[in-house]
C-alpha cells in the first residue's frame, strides 16, 4: 500500500520489518507460529549483522520453502538431513554462519540420527527446532512428539503409547551429548515467551559465532490447521497441553555460553 502516513515529530520507530527477510508473503496458514519464529530469526540476523555471511539449511515440512523468505543464502536438505548438510557447509566454510530450521517430523523422526550425532560431535552449527506435535505439511499425521491420547489423521482414536511409544523429548536427549553447548526449550505462544525465545535464538547464534559448540532452540509451537482449532485457541492449547509434557527451560548451557552478552 502506498499511502504515506504522517509520523508525529515526537514519535520514534520501535518496530519495523527485518532487513534480513524478503517481502514475499509466506505460504503458512493464518496464525501459524512458523511465521513468528521466522520473524525472530530475521530480527536476530539483523541485530548480529549476519545477513551477508549466513547459509541456512531448509528442512522438509511446512517450512520447506523458508528460503523464499530470507535475504540470505539457503540450501535444501533431504528430509531430516539438515544437520548433516550443515556439518559439511560449516567444515568447508568455517567463516560462515550456518543454521538449520527443522520441524519435529524432520528432526525427531526421520532425522533423529543426524541431529544427535551433529550435537555429539559438537558441530559449530545452530538449530531452530519447531515442535508442533504433528506432521503439518503432509496432513496432520502422528509425529514422535504427538501427545498421549492426541487425535491425528493417523491416530484417529488418539495416540496409544503402548503401540506408538511415548512423545520423544529431544532437548533432554540432546543435552546429554558432550558436544552440545546450549540446548533450550522455549515457546512461541504468548508475548513473554516470544520475547524470551528471541533472546534464546540470539544466544544460540552467538554460541556458534564464538565457536563454543552445538546449539539448539526447541520451540513449542502450534498447527491450528491440523489441530482443527482457531489460531488463538491453538496458542492456549499449546501452553496448556504441550508445556506439561515438554517442560520449558534450559537443558544445557556451558559456562562460556552463560557468559555471553545477549
Amino acid at each position, binding site marked *: *500500500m502506498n499511502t504515506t*502516513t504522517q*509520523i*508525529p515529530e*515526537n*514519535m*520514534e*520507530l*520501535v*518496530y*519495523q*520489518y*527485518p532487513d534480513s*527477510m524478503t517481502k514475499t*508473503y*509466506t505460504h*503458512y*496458514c*493464518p*496464525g*501459524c*507460529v*512458523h*511465521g*513468528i519464529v*521466522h*520473524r525472530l530469526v530475521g530480527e536476530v540476523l539483523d541485530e548480529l549483522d549476519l545477513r551477508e555471511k549466513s547459509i541456512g539449511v531448509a528442512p522438509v515440512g511446512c517450512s520447506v520453502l523458508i528460503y523464499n523468505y530470507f535475504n540470505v543464502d539457503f540450501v535444501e536438505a533431504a528430509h531430516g538431513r539438515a544437520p548433516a548438510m550443515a556439518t559439511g557447509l560449516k567444515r568447508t566454510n568455517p567463516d560462515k554462519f550456518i543454521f538449520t530450521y527443522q520441524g519435529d517430523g524432520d528432526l525427531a523422526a526421520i532425522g533423529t540420527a543426524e541431529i544427535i550425532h551433529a550435537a555429539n560431535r559438537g558441530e559449530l552449527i545452530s538449530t531452530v527446532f519447531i515442535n508442533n506435535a504433528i506432521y503439518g505439511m503432509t496432513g496432520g499425521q502422528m509425529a514422535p512428539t504427538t501427545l498421549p491420547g492426541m487425535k491425528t489423521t493417523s491416530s484417529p482414536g488418539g495416540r496409544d503409547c503402548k503401540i506408538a511409544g511415548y512423545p520423544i523429548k529431544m532437548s533432554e536427549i540432546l543435552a546429554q551429548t558432550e558436544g552440545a553447548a546450549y540446548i533450550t526449550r522455549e515457546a512461541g505462544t*504468548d*508475548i513473554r515467551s*516470544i*520475547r524470551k525465545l528471541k533472546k534464546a535464538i540470539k544466544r544460540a547464534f552467538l554460541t556458534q559465532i564464538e565457536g563454543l559448540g552445538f546449539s539448539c532452540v526447541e520451540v513449542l509451537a502450534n498447527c491450528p490447521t491440523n489441530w482443527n482449532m*482457531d*489460531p*488463538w485457541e491453538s*496458542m492456549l492449547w499449546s501452553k496448556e497441553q504441550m508445556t506439561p509434557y515438554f517442560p520449558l527451560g534450559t537443558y544445557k548451557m556451558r559456562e562460556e555460553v552463560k557468559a555471553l552478552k545477549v
Partner: protein
Amino acid sequence: MAKGMVIIDVERCKGCGLCTHVCPVNILELSPDTFNAKGYRPVTVTDMDECIGCAACATICPDVVFTVYRQRRQRATATA
C-alpha cells in the same frame, strides 16, 4: 495525545486474530466489512489515540504486518 501509533500493511494480514487478543488497550479488531486481495478480513484499529506503542501486536504477528512508533521518552534512556 496518543502515546503510540501503528501502521498496518493490510495486504500482508491473514486475519488470524492473534494481535486482537494481545493488545492491552483493545483497539485491534478484524475488519467487519472489508477484505484484502488474499480474501482475508484484515486487522483494523478502532481508536489510534489509545495506542501506547507497546509493540505487543508486532511481537505476536506471524506475518509482520505492523510497524510501530512510540512517543520519545523525555530523558535519554536505553530502551529494553
